[in-house]
Every structure is written in structure tokens, then in C-alpha cells.
């Protein structure tokens, strides 16, 4: 596979201005951006889990999922605020609602989602206004998937070649990661809980998530041409490879998790690690593709032939 990719990419000597980047390398940083991607998708998937669990009479699971979804949403929001150059102006995000800005749409999705899951969680904890709490829980099954998927639009809607070209692969990676993270949380909970009645659902969710997440990662690694190179080489490529091994071995460990609490914990740790590595890989690949002008030139002039150095 790797050799075949390299054959497809002709060696090209791109002209540049002293090798300087054409684009500004993103100011988004570690661990904030990958951390937010993970927390947001975890909260999103857990909101759906909470709604489905409630609908199917799994009261204990619904309660746990709603509480965890709330924690994830608020921790994610705090992470985003810390990413700002002016964190005290975080609420300026809600000054306008702007369809052309995925970050504006995402801010509203996160805000509404946070309100819904915390309403559902508060109702669970206090036992009051259960009608309202359950309605909010059902509504959060709509905002949750959007919260998990919209960051793919956020990243793709940039001039960063490795992100812009990946608008099909990134949402798969993120919603797959959402299911994996929620499934892993379920596996870990089943390992420490006496009640293992929800093990099967957690196991299936983790397996479905791992498959979708691996598909997204595979899509990134095999993007043809130079634009996919940052996902195959450098620290972005290494982290994406690590993510694949962690996710696959987490899936293998999950096979043994039904009979072994140790295996369940190991599976949860491996799957979570895989999801985190994938998020860091996406940030690193984006930075690499913005830092080298050849990726910009190649994405805009695919037929660019070699020239003398400028």
C-alpha cells in the first residue's frame, strides 16, 4: 500500500519563497483542540446512549450516561474557552448565529446540547421535573450526534490542505470515535460494577465505533497524492498508525471482556487511547500541511511540473 502511494506521487520540485509557508500554521494547540474533539464527541454519543437507555428501561445506565454527557460537555466548553486568545470573551461566540461559520454553528450546538444534557442530568439527580428532564434527554439525542460530527466541518472549512481535502473522512473518524469512546466508557463501567446487564450494548457500541473510526483513519491514510502525505508521514502519520493499532487491539481485548474484568479495562484504555491519538494526529497533519508550501501548491495546481528553485 505504502509503496503504491509513493509511485502515484511524482517527485516535484516546487517553487517557493525561501521555503516559507504560504499559509499561517494554525494557532490551535495541544492538548486543547484534540482534547475538545474527544470530550465533545464523548458527550455527544453519551447523550444518545442516555436517551436510548431511558427509552429501553435501563434506568441506571440512563442516569450515568446523562451525568457523564454533562461533564463532557462542560469540560469540552471550558477547553474551548481556554483555547481563545481572550478567554474572558468566550460568550462573544453567542453574539451572532452565522451559518457560514462552522464555529458559530458549533458554539450554538454545544450551548444547546449542554443545556439539554444538564437539564436531563439535574432531573435525574433531583428527581424533579422528570417530564422536562426526559424531554431534554430525547432532544439531546439530536444535538449529540451533531456535536460529534460538526468539528469535521470546522476543520475542513479552512485553507489547510490536509483538512480541507478530508471533509468525507473526518466526520467518519469523529463519529466513529464518539461511539468508541462511549463504548469504552461502558466497558470500563461494566468492569467495576456488579451489574453487568448493559455489557452487551457497550461491547457492540465499542465494536461498531472501532470499525467506523478505523474506516475514517484508513480513509485519511490513503488519500491520494501529496495532500494525504501528512497523514502517512511525520508525527501525524505516526500518531495515526498508533491510533490504528490501539483501536484494533482494543477491539481484540473487548472480545475477551465479557469474562474478564481486566480485559474490559484494558479494552477501554486501548480504545480511548486510540481515539485520542487519532485526534492529535489530525492536528499534527494539519499543521504539517500548512507549514510546507508544497502542499498548498500541489492542492491548487495538481499538474504542477518541476521548476528551477525560486
Amino acid at each position: 500500500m505504502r509503496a503504491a502511494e509513493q509511485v502515484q506521487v511524482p517527485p516535484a520540485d516546487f517553487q517557493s519563497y525561501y521555503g516559507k509557508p504560504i499559509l499561517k500554521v494554525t494557532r490551535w494547540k495541544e492538548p486543547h483542540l484534540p482534547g475538545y474533539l474527544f470530550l465533545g464527541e464523548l458527550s455527544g454519543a453519551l447523550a444518545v446512549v442516555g436517551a436510548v437507555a431511558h427509552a429501553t428501561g435501563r434506568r441506571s445506565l440512563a442516569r450515568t450516561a446523562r451525568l457523564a454527557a454533562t461533564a463532557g460537555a462542560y469540560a469540552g466548553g471550558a477547553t474551548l474557552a481556554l483555547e481563545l486568545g481572550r478567554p474572558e470573551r468566550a460568550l462573544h461566540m453567542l453574539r451572532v448565529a452565522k451559518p457560514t461559520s462552522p464555529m458559530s454553528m458549533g458554539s450554538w450546538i454545544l450551548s444547546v446540547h449542554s443545556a439539554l444534557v444538564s437539564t436531563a442530568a439535574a432531573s435525574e439527580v433531583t428527581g424533579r421535573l422528570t417530564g422536562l428532564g426526559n424531554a431534554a434527554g430525547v432532544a439531546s439525542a439530536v444535538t449529540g450526534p451533531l456535536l460529534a460530527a460538526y468539528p469535521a466541518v470546522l476543520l475542513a472549512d479552512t485553507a489547510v490542505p490536509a483538512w480541507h481535502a478530508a471533509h468525507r473522512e473526518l466526520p467518519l473518524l469523529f463519529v466513529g470515535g464518539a461511539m468508541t469512546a462511549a463504548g469504552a466508557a461502558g466497558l470500563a463501567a461494566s468492569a467495576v460494577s456488579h451489574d453487568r446487564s448493559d455489557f452487551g450494548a457497550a461491547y457492540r457500541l465499542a465494536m461498531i465505533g472501532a470499525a467506523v473510526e478505523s474506516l475514517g483513519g484508513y480513509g485519511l491514510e490513503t488519500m491520494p497524492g501529496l495532500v494525504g502525505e501528512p497523514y502517512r508521514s511525520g508525527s501525524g502519520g505516526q500518531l495515526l498508525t498508533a491510533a490504528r493499532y490501539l483501536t484494533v487491539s482494543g477491539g481484540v481485548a473487548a472480545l475477551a471482556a465479557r469474562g474478564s474484568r481486566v480485559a474490559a479495562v484494558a479494552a477501554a484504555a486501548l480504545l480511548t487511547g486510540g481515539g485520542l491519538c487519532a485526534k492529535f494526529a489530525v492536528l499534527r497533519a494539519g499543521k504539517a500541511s500548512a507549514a510546507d508550501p508544497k502542499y498548498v501548491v500541489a492542492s491548487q495546481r495538481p499538474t504542477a511540473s518541476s521548476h528551477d528553485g525560486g
Partner: protein
Amino acid sequence: MTSSGTSLNGRLDDVSGDAGYAGHPQRVGFFTDTSVCIGCKACEVACKEWNGLPEPDAFTLTGMSYDNTGGLGASAWRHVAFIEQDVISEIADGAATRWLMSSDVCKHCTHAACLDVCPTGALVRTEFGSVVVQADVCNGCAYCVSACPFGVIDRREDDGRVWKCTMCYDRLRGGLEPACAKACPTDSIQFGPLDALRETAHTRLAELHAAGQGEARLYGDDPDDGIGGAGAFFLLLDAPEVYGLPPEPVVTTKDLPSMWRWAGASAALLAAGVAVAFAGRRQ
């Protein structure tokens, strides 16, 4: 007060009208004719003086010919590039060095990705058609930094907000031309109504071609290009990437509907995945 407009790409002849201005002045811009740039950097100095821009973190020599600014940034809104090329010259009867100099600036795109993606409304289209950051609104999210296809706008880390060329909005409001154009001693930087500048540029290009400068080309002048044409366009003497410019930039927002479709389908996949996981028999 203003919006980012309604159209995401394609030709747009009334950019200020699209953003909601009625009875606005005609669109103005820069035509930077690099063939007469002498690399004096008066534009850089005038810009810094007028706009009160902070000095660089360090005064260092880059080794990039006479360019010690390095590029456009949060505190460098004009940047003169210096390119030294080995050429065969008939005049010099053999090997010689050709110097290209070009004063770069924010392109004030017709379809400005920075403006499209700004989540707070800090970036606005002005009545003159230029794109400006409102410093009292910006919260430093830096989305615009990654969205700009030219690598122009950037965050000042000690300040936390993003900054870029305003086309001297304050001077325009007072009926003056921007400081860089005012200071340029060779008229390499020309300011005026965009339509008139485009005519001037095409005339100048024809002159250069007639004089044997076949490599001369306009950059950013075409209202049908990927950004709907730039409010600040250039006459270059080599390929754009030689000057550190993207060869064929396209506003990233052009593909936004497609991005949302894929994300929406993936969101549905997530909901379906959870439903399937819970459909099985309980243990």
C-alpha cells in the same frame, strides 16, 4: 450592522451591497505593480507609523536578501518580498542576477474566508468593500488564521486578538488614501476604485508584454477566480508561489454545503450505531 453576505463563491459585482449596505461608496482597492517596486519599504514604515503597529519581537537578519520582515502577520500589514534569481541576460552578456521585489498586503477578497468563518462577527465587510477586524469584538479564536488562503491574518499572542490590514479604514472615512499607497515613491502601490485599477492594470500588462516581458501576469484581478477577485491585486513577473503566494486560491467556504452533508450523514450514522448497539438482547 453588517453580515458576511449571502453568496459563498462565484462572481459578485456589488460586494458591499451583498453585505447589506445601501447607497455605499464604490469599491476601492490596491493595484500593486511589482515591476516598478524598488524595495524601499516606505510602505511598511508608513503602515507601521500610521497604524501604530508594535515593533517586531526581535530585530534579526533573516538572510532572505533584503527581506528582514519575513512575511505578513499580526503586526506587519505590508511586507516587501525580495527574490534574487540567476538569469542569463543579453545586456550583461551572460550570467546575471535578477531582483524581484513585491509589496504584499491583505487581498480583501470578494469572498473572504476569514470573514465567512468568523464566529463572533468581529470581521466585517466595510462600505468600501474592504474587510476589517473589530478589535473590541474579536475573542481570538483564530479560526480566520487557518481559513485565510493567503496566510495574511494572524493572532498577536501578547494581545490575544487577530490583526490585519484595514486598508486604513480611518483614512478612507476621512477621504484620504491608505498610508502605504501615499508613501510609495514609484506608484508601485496604486489606490483607487477597483474597476479603474483593473483597467489600468490591463493597460500596463499590455505595455510590458509589448516590451518583451512575456512573464508578466496579473494576480487576483479576475472577478471569476476562486475568491471572486481580490480587492488588492498584483502585477507579478514570475509565478505566484515564487513570491510566497498561493497559485490558485479558492475560498474554502465554497465547499461548505458538501461538508455539512457528509457531517450530517455521519451524525445520522452515530445515532443509528447507538440504536443498533442497544437493539440486542440484554445479558
